[in-house]
């Protein structure tokens, strides 16, 4: 592919939606003069077959390698264009859309020529981005070799069986492989499932006895490195031998949650008052308990109401087992009124036949356990009744712990201590995400019954097989918009790995341990907050890089006039809200210029600084609602970055209101309109930042500081919210102290940056007075700062005629 960008711009008339409202002819003339624009034209409908065929011809005839379509919502239409132009070697990232209909034509009350001017600004920004784009080649994903199935969960066998049925080699790393022993232990994690045991035996045998299986019994996982397709798993050294390493193309983890007894207030003693797995154990050891067994479904009381249904089914199965095998034993199931009994009609009939009593109790009054009695508040008469018992069986507390937690941590699956692993992935479109279900099965993911666990195991096996098959057929490509590490710049500080929520950043084995410096392309969601946080710009979001965004924002900012605002909306919040405002025909201030990004978290603060440097009077980021962020913490990270920018603006003597973070709900476009209008009012009141040398010097210093100063970037990066933290503020310290310290560092570094810039610009040794006057800063402060720079070795200090002169080191 040519390095030179040949941009083709196609302006859509869109029936009567765009053509009568925007002076397209004037717009086309303006755009055609832009550098790198090889072709531009007005089409009736570029998105329909006639238009698409025409674009295809033009791409071939003029050798276009970037396409910009100015029409409607890229969120909806981009996929179609990518599909149609794929064969011409135009891929995701090389096609861009500007929403003229929704962001210009439908929402402003301007005349067509004025609209054309606004549209030209947005288009020129897009052209600037396309010019900078360095498209990556399409890379085929390579996934072959054995699959590692790891974990003590029962789902491992289901996954292994599925792999063996599809002729895929696999390692099975699990502690127990004899079916009898597995079955003997299964009630620890899945109580009340004994009616399925005979069917389980077959699954286990088929998996273990498969000729494709390599069983690794009694091994303990110690480490994982590499990426999808080429993992290396290290197993802990036994006293006899060295650590063993295995290479695997994919990893399927089958982990189960633990069941622990509830707290002392429930009177658990493991003998008479026990939890469900303990009753199952008793069945094995002492047989069916005589007398009256009371099952108390206390899930609401142990604050796990979501699992009440699971406990209820387990309790019913055990109750059934007792009644079927010991007709003299009595069974009562005591349940909270909030629970709906999960029994089918046939189950209910059997229940009546067996005489199992289900008693609901009032949720308002907590049952208590006393010696020989359990009290509960009757629903019918609200009188507290007592029920005598010989054995009480309670619901277990389900937690993620022990070995499962350890393995999950090594595999990079864990995200919040003690919480289940599900729901931790970014909530984005399927084409963007890694494959959660392929590498995780079992009740550690989320509490489930045996059937569901086996199902998950089977699905994991099947999906892995499909992925390997697709890769073998040469149809599986590495996603286009993902992070890549530049090994020359990366120092291995690990900030990105801490921040990454998708778990895509892995370690690379090296001397002295693993360095977090490889990105698994099949897991990365392209959220990009990690890339924006990198102090050294070593992490680059491929095909959607910081340079591209900077170019786009800079190009737009350069064209901003008095009162005009650059608004950057995320594709899940601000941008669709703007699209929908356009669709509904809501009009808002035409001075708002909207750009879209996949997540506001990927906006590096240097992009914000660049906007002001290039002349934007105001910048607003419109993200998702906090807590609804699709890339988990992007909006929180954007908050911290905006906050730093506010500090810097204040330091430099500008109004801190020029930059703001806002939130938008895509379904409430009217609210979005209020947000941007209010911000535009503020900016209109503030006026332009005067383009005089003093202001430009400060703005350039801000930009250089936030882009290149690794101390500030490290501090900022460290202050961002981590996935396991409840909030983004540095809670380890006093909030105000922390803020003051942070501000002090910024202040110090800002002055240093300005001094360095000044010395660089003058190219001659300068005196302290000259420097202080030139920067209009206090002489004592400047002297302090200069001394720091001299001791750092950043600048030279020399004496001429008893006067100190400062100069840059050549």
């Amino acid at each position, binding site marked *: 592919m040519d390095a030179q960008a040949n941009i083709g711009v196609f302006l859509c008339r869109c*029936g009567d939606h765009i053509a009568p409202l925007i002076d397209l002819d004037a717009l086309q003339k303006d755009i055609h003069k832009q550098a790198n624009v090889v072709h531009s034209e007005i089409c*009736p409908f570029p998105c329909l077959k006639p238009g698409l065929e025409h674009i295809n011809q033009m791409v071939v005839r003029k050798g276009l390698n970037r396409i910009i379509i100015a029409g409607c919502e890229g969120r*909806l239409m981009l996929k179609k264009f990518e599909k149609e132009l794929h064969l011409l070697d135009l891929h995701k990232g090389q096609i861009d859309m500007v929403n003229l209909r929704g962001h210009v034509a439908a929402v402003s009350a301007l005349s067509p020529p004025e609209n054309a001017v606004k549209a030209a600004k947005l288009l020129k920004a897009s052209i600037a981005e396309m010019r900078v784009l360095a498209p990556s080649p399409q890379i085929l994903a390579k996934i072959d070799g054995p699959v590692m199935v790891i974990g003590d969960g029962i789902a491992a066998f289901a996954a292994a069986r599925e792999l063996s049925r599809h002729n895929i080699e696999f390692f099975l790393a699990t502690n127990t492989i004899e079916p009898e022993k597995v079955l003997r232990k299964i009630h620890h994690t899945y109580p009340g499932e004994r009616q399925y045991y005979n069917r389980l035996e077959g699954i286990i045998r088929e998996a273990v006895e498969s000729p494709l299986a390599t069983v690794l019994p009694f091994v303990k996982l110690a480490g994982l490195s590499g990426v999808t397709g080429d993992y290396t798993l290290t197993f802990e050294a036994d006293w006899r031998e060295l650590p063993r390493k295995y290479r695997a193309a994919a990893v399927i983890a089958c982990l189960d949650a633990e069941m622990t007894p509830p707290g002392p207030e429930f009177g658990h003693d493991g003998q008479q008052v026990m939890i469900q797995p303990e009753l199952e154990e008793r069945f094995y050891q002492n047989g069916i308990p005589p007398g009256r067994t009371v099952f108390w479904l206390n899930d609401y009381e142990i604050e796990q109401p979501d699992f009440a249904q699971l406990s209820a089914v387990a309790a019913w199965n055990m109750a059934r087992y007792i009644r079927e095998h010991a007709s003299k034993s009595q069974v009562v199931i005591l349940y909270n009124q909030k629970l709906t009994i999960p029994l089918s009609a046939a189950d209910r009939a059997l229940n009546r036949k067996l005489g199992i009593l289900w008693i609901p109790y009032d949720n308002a009054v907590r049952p208590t356990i006393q010696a020989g009695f359990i009290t509960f508040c009757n629903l019918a008469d609200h009188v507290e009744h007592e029920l005598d018992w010989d054995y009480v069986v309670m619901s277990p507390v389900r937690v993620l712990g022990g070995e499962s937690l350890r393995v999950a941590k090594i595999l990079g699956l864990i995200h919040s201590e003690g919480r289940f692993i599900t729901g931790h992935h970014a909530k984005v*479109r399927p084409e963007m995400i890694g494959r959660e279900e392929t590498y995780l099965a079992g009740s550690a993911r989320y509490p489930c019954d045996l059937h569901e666990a086996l199902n998950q195991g089977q699905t994991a096996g099947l999906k892995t097989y499909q992925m390997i098959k697709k890769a073998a057929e040469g149809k599986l490509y590495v996603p286009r918009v993902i992070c890549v590490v530049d090994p020359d710049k990366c120092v291995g500080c690990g900030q990105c790995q801490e921040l990454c929520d998708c778990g895509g950043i892995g370690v690379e084995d090296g001397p002295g341990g693993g360095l977090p410096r490889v990105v698994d392309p099949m897991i990365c969601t392209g959220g990009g907050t990690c890339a924006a946080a990198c102090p050294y710009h070593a992490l680059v979001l491929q095909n959607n890089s910081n340079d591209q965004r900077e170019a786009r924002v800079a190009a737009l900012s350069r064209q901003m006039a008095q009162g005009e605002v650059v608004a950057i909306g995320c594709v899940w919040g601000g941008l669709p809200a703007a699209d929908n405002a356009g669709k509904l025909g809501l009009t808002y201030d035409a001075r708002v210029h909207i750009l879209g990004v996949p997540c506001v978290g990927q906006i590096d603060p240097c992009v914000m600084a660049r906007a002001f440097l290039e002349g934007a009077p105001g910048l607003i980021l419109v993200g998702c*609602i906090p807590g*609804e962020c699709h890339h988990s913490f992007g909006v929180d990270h954007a908050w911290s970055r905006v906050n730093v920018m506010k500090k810097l603006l204040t330091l430099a003597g500008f109004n801190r209101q020029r930059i703001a973070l806002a939130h938008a709900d895509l*379904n409430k476009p009217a*609210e979005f309109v209020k947000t941007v209008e209010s911000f535009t009012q503020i900016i209109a009141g503030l006026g332009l930042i005067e383009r005089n040398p003093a202001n430009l010097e400060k703005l350039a210093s801000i930009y250089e500081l936030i882009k290149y100063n690794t101390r500030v970037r490290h501090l900022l990066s460290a202050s961002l919210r981590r996935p396991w933290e409840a909030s983004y503020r540095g809670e380890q310290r006093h909030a105000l102290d922390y803020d003051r310290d942070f501000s002090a560092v910024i202040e110090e570094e800002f002055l240093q940056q300005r001094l360095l810039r000044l010395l660089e610009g003058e190219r001659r040794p300068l005196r302290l007075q000259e420097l202080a006057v030139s920067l209009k800063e206090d002489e004592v402060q400047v002297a302090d700062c200069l001394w720091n720079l001299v001791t750092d070795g950043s600048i030279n200090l020399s004496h001429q005629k008893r006067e100190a002169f400062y100069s840059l080191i050549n």
Partner: protein
Amino acid sequence: MIEFNINDRKVRAGQGWTILETARHYGLDIPALCYHESVAPSGACRLCMVELREGSWSRLVASCIYPVQQGINVYTETERVQNIRRWIFEMLLAACPASQEIKELAARYGVVSTRFPIHDPDQTCMVCGLCSRVCEEVVGLSAISTVDRGVHKKVSSPFLRPTDICVACGCCVSVCPTGAMQAIFDSVRGEPVMQLTQLTA
């Protein structure tokens, strides 16, 4: 190239183009609601009906799904087309009387009232299924679909409950031709936890 006539005007089209695509390419307006460029057409709303004439007989076809053929004569504004269009508008006005978008479009074609009984004055959805097609084809999920049959048919997530499958991208809201999805959307994604839109201080 396939040559045929639209409103007695000679037009040329490529293999596999539909009448609607060709007409739009030549700047002819055919109203359509369930048609969206981002997904395959389905011919659900029937608003894009055009007349095909050959000799003494004529028939009505949905132009969004009718592939062009050599030498056909298409008419988009004949009395028969206008008549059927009026009927469809009246039925739509009765089916979703609360939809502002449909009212506006109908008014543009001169239909302002309906003679059919209105069963639900608050209804906005015409159950064209465009939202579920977008969810499947553009987003790659199937968080919403049409459920039930006949007069009970409606758009919803499985079991009428908020679903985890929905990524809340809002594509369905953006394409909905009647504005109904705005109300349905919250019942699919679940109401967002916080209802705030504010500038940070």
